[in-house]
């Protein structure tokens, strides 16, 4: 007869092993363990659903035609719903960028590392300040370019040079160069 009063007594508790571990202990741990694993598995889709959906990811690469950009001009494109600066550097700007001692920079990178072979005059960066995400000035005609002739962020005064490297102000790193490639002589694919 099973436990009839709902209270376990020495007579009603069956110990299976000499160590006092009962079958019921095993069943208890197995059942709670299985429920725990199941519950944790359910969390996966509940968390994952908030990540970018397929239609957002499908918009994650952008093509830009760089052939129409004159030296000294920049255009703004949109990459992943954020501004993208594509600038054709003048010879003077390239020289100014190469003139700097890279090791003295806050985020040491040469212009060569920030541009592509054969297209050293095309500078592609995100138009997103690395400080807190504002759009720096300097891409459009007539905008302030800052002390170093590149970009100037109006929010907190970060100054970027002609290679869009941080030179002064609170931004911790250079303007990000996204992953891109020249898919032809005149077209870049970003992302």
């Amino acid at each position: 007869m099973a436990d009839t009063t709902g209270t376990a007594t020495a007579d009603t508790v069956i110990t299976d092993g000499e160590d006092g571990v009962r079958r019921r202990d095993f069943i208890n741990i197995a059942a709670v363990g299985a429920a725990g694993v199941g519950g944790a598995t359910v969390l996966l889709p509940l968390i994952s659903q908030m990540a970018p959906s397929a239609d957002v990811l499908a918009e994650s690469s952008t093509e830009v035609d760089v052939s129409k950009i004159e030296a000294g001009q920049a255009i703004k494109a949109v990459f992943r719903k954020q501004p993208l600066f594509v600038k054709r550097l003048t010879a003077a700007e390239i020289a100014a960028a190469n003139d700097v001692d890279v090791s003295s920079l806050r985020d040491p990178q040469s212009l060569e590392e920030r541009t592509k072979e054969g297209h050293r005059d095309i500078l592609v960066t995100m138009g997103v300040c690395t400080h807190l995400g504002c759009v720096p000035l300097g891409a459009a005609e007539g905008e302030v370019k800052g002390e170093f002739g590149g970009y100037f962020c109006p929010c907190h005064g970060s100054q970027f040079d002609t290679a869009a490297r941080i030179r002064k102000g609170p931004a911790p790193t250079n303007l990000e160069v996204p992953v891109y490639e020249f898919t032809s002589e005149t077209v870049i694919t970003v992302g």
Partner: protein
Amino acid sequence: MSFPWAREYTPTNDFMKFMDEKLPLPRLVYNAVGAGYPVPRNLSYMWNFGVLAGFFLVVQIVTGVVLAMHYAANADVAFATTEHIMRDVNWGWLMRYAHANGASFFFIVVYLHIFRGFFYSSYKAPREMIWLLGVVLFLLMMATAFMGYVLPWGQMSFWGAKVITGLFGAIPVVGEPIQIWLLGGFAPDNAALNRFFSLHFLLPFVIAGVVILHIWALHIPGSSNPTGVEVKKESDTLPFHPYYTAKDGFGLGVVLIAFMAFVFFMPNALGHPDNYIEANSLSTPALIVPEWYFYPFYAILRAFTFDFILPAKLWGVLAMFSSILVWFILPWLDRSPVRSGHYRPMFRKFFWFGLIPCMAALFYLGGAHAEEPYIMLSQIATAYYFLHFLVILPIVSSIEKPEPLPFSITEAVLGEDEDAQLGASGPASA
């Protein structure tokens, strides 16, 4: 609010002692679904469905909140965002299928919960308030489910909204203005869709609130049981945890297997293909029916085809609402002092061979085309439905001779109860 032998919560460490003094939430849980809640020891699996209904309410709220993150309640894009959820959102198909089938399963377990109540007279004193709150919960569920079905803005959504709001148009004089007011227009459109979304988000939390009242009211007399004999002493009960947490856990596992079978292998089996066609106010689908869980009430609505003093349309609407409202007076229609159908021979026959086939017929007829012989059968089933509650139940409960009740739950389980032989008072009024 429990039996004197209920175990008292004793915090075992300093942190829990601190909590118990400042915010005795662990004590509340312990006394509600822990070892501090003594429950009749003889509960069958029919007593699982309350917990299961609570579980599906949680499923609906969790998946619903997720869906609301990706859905847009605008008539121009609602259908497209539903497809966006199905195709683009990570696991969106799972969320939507779980939500759609979760609604069906919520109704399945609630129907079984209600029919448990019918058979064991769970509505009788001292549990009338639990029952009344349960009927309120069912009405809230129906409203929520109806409005949720409108949101995908498919053909069935649109025409369902039109037909159901049209019910209010049956009210004399003020009906049409009320319908226009409900819709915020002359037909379902953006205004209706937006308010349905707002209310569909709100009502589940209202339901959760009423569920708390439902459980609160339950914990005053304690759970009923298959014998209908009230708990008399400690040997009649077991602590809720671990005995009924384990039993409910097993039932939950079984129901989850069935739920997953639908979600993963036949997610659209309970839906209507027409709802994958975008809402079109100029074309009505050939067969307009609600979701399956509304079939019995839809059958009652359509059973009235002739004017009798009042127009047929109004009779249909009145009958449909009355078919649920009659549950509110059920505790006073059933006059038998005995609760459990196991000890009520006449009632039992009318339950199994009257009410159950009648409900099964209404379920079938609500989904059938509005043509003969289904109309006539709906009329017969509707007549029997009201006859059962308003005539048969009061008469049968007055004249039937109940079978002898066990002295106690302990006797019913063990076959003997020493207190019964000691000449304790006979079966108390049960």
